[in-house]
């Protein structure tokens, strides 16, 4: 059970841990007069370090039996539930979808305001995930600056609304078009790059948009952002307590209800649900068209695509542009919901989260992305109590995911081979 290699490994691991943790956690800089001196920390943390080193050593020593037990435990874990094959049964599928949608629309009337708000945020991320999925999951283009298009959409609505007083409904398609336009402009020069190079350029693009918004103070308010962005209305009916000047009417007055702030939250939620349904519908349509298959083919083999007479740049450009358009829609909704946006909402971390949703969900799989978006937004909320350990847990979860299901939660499925008797 205990072998020589385990012993050596244990010693090495423990020493490495001691050196690293002693420097990172064991010593402290303290002010003394005008200079800084290095001091040892109190005994507690030193004991912790020592305990840590012993644990690491023991783990390496008994690595084989431990990993064996874990392996057995893993085998004992229940397999992921297998969804019934809905392709064979379109009626059942439609019925399930109708029920699901109805449940989604009724749910907010029974839930708390905070829960609805969180659900709305989740829906925004689902929309972003689905959009980025076209670019990363289907066309295989690693885009690290997706948040840039999200920002374009948000600022399009915020600026048009605050400067020209245009309504949300007019701005929604404009925001999508603007984001698509930016996607097109960026895509044109960079899409001849591949892999890592494309990732770097898109990363830079996301940052450029943010910094531009930060610095164009006169137009965008710079770091102060834009506040008091108008909320969406229901056929002109506002959800405020009092009518704004020139407004058409108030929701609660029109329907003879007492004023409640919850109506607005529920309305936004339902709007988000409808936008996500629309997104799913459009993307599914695209996937069934030749262009959807071309995206996937391009991801698989660019040279083969060229040999079939396809123009890779054009196909990439469509993926990039359409993906960006969905970020634009999501952005304008985000601006409308928040009522306030600033460049700080569009930092790189956002791109990383959206990308994590796509990867976690299983590249290309839409159901997986919805699931992953829920995990990525709801889990941090649930884990709020753990405060600073939140991100640590998050990282841990990702590591386990990579071991347990490297293809994502629900990898894209294709019909498996059918054995036929010959």
């Amino acid at each position: 059970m205990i072998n020589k290699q385990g012993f050596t490994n244990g010693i090495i691991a423990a020493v490495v841990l001691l050196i690293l943790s002693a420097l990172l956690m064991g010593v402290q800089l303290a002010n003394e007069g005008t200079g800084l001196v290095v001091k040892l920390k109190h005994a507690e943390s030193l004991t912790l370090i020592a305990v840590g080193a012993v644990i690491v050593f023991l783990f390496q020593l008994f690595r084989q039996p431990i990993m064996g037990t874990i392996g057995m435990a893993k085998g004992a874990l229940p397999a992921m539930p297998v969804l019934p094959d809905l392709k064979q049964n379109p009626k059942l599928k439609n019925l399930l979808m109708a029920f699901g949608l109805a449940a989604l629309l009724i749910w907010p009337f029974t839930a708390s305001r905070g829960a609805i708000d969180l659900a709305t945020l989740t829906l925004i991320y689902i929309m972003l995930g689905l959009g980025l999925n076209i670019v990363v999951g289907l066309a295989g283009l690693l885009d690290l600056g997706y948040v840039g298009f999200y920002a374009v959409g948000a600022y399009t609505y915020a600026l048009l609304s605050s400067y020209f007083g245009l309504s949300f409904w007019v701005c929604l398609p404009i925001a999508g078009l603007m984001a698509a336009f930016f996607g097109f402009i960026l895509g044109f020069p960079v899409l001849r790059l591949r892999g890592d190079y494309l990732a770097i350029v898109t990363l830079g693009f996301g940052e450029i948009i943010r910094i531009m918004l930060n610095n164009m103070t006169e137009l965008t308010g710079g770091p102060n952002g834009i506040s008091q962005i108008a909320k969406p209305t229901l056929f002109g009916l506002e959800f405020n307590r009092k009518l704004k000047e020139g407004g058409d009417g108030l929701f609660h007055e029109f329907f003879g209800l007492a004023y409640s702030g919850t109506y607005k939250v529920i309305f936004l939620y339902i709007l988000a649900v409808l936008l996500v349904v629309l997104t799913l519908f459009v993307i599914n349509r695209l996937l069934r068209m030749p262009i959807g298959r071309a995206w996937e083919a391009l991801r698989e083999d660019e040279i083969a695509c060229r040999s079939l007479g396809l123009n890779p740049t054009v196909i990439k450009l469509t993926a990039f542009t359409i993906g960006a358009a969905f970020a634009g829609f999501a952005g304008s909704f985000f601006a409308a919901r928040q009522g306030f946006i600033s460049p700080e909402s569009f930092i790189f971390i956002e791109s990383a989260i959206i990308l994590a949703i796509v990867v976690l969900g299983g590249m290309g799989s839409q159901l997986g992305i919805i699931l992953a978006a829920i995990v990525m937004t709801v889990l941090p909320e649930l884990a709020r109590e753990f405060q600073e350990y939140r991100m640590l847990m998050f990282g841990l979860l990702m590591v386990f995911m990579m071991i347990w299901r490297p293809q994502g939660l629900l990898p894209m499925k294709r019909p498996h081979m059918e054995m036929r008797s010959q």
Partner: protein
Amino acid sequence: MLKLQNVSTCYGKIQALDDVTVEVKKGEIVSLIGANGAGKSTLLMTVCGDPRLASGSIEYMGEDISRKKTSEIMRSGIAIVPEGRRVFSRLTVEENLHMGGFFTEPSEFDKTLKHVYELFPRLKERQSQRSGTMSGGEQQMLAIGRAMMSRPKLLFLDEPSLGLAPLIIKQIFDIIEHLRDEGMTIFLVEQNANQALRLADRGYVLENGRIVLQDTGEALLTNENVRKAYLGG
């Protein structure tokens, strides 16, 4: 049908093709044989427009195509079965074939698909299987089928026997012959000189970017130098 005249191609400063003249006539199988790195694949790719030729001319159906874009050339009745098959491995067989027929007239599409399935009953059996999970021979059949989906008049095959078992190679070459009998013009690039020349109406031998020999397939098979260099004495 296809006429390369004094074509030279360069990769940077390295000259890969040097003054190559090759002709493929309608209804022929023409084989191009040569060792590794002789420039066989480069020749095919030059016709497809990538890399561009440095000098000379390429004429296809009486029209100079040497300045055309790759995508235009590949839509003008030329199809290529690329080296190493290059099927879209995570797409199903049928999806692969759909990609092959991307620019095929919708009215012709079903007929073409049916024809490909008749040529390769194996593909029909596996139509909803992911192509990456099939054997090398089946993938080669798929690559040929995919190229056929564009209803080409001229078919390029780049080393279709690469990495396949002798029995499968025979099947593949039988199919190539069958395609010729159906009226397809075929330009075959091979290292497997024996098989390629046996099938060929005419053949060319490429060495270091130059055509060193050209003759009928039969004559090349019995040629002293070819036997020594490519057929193992």
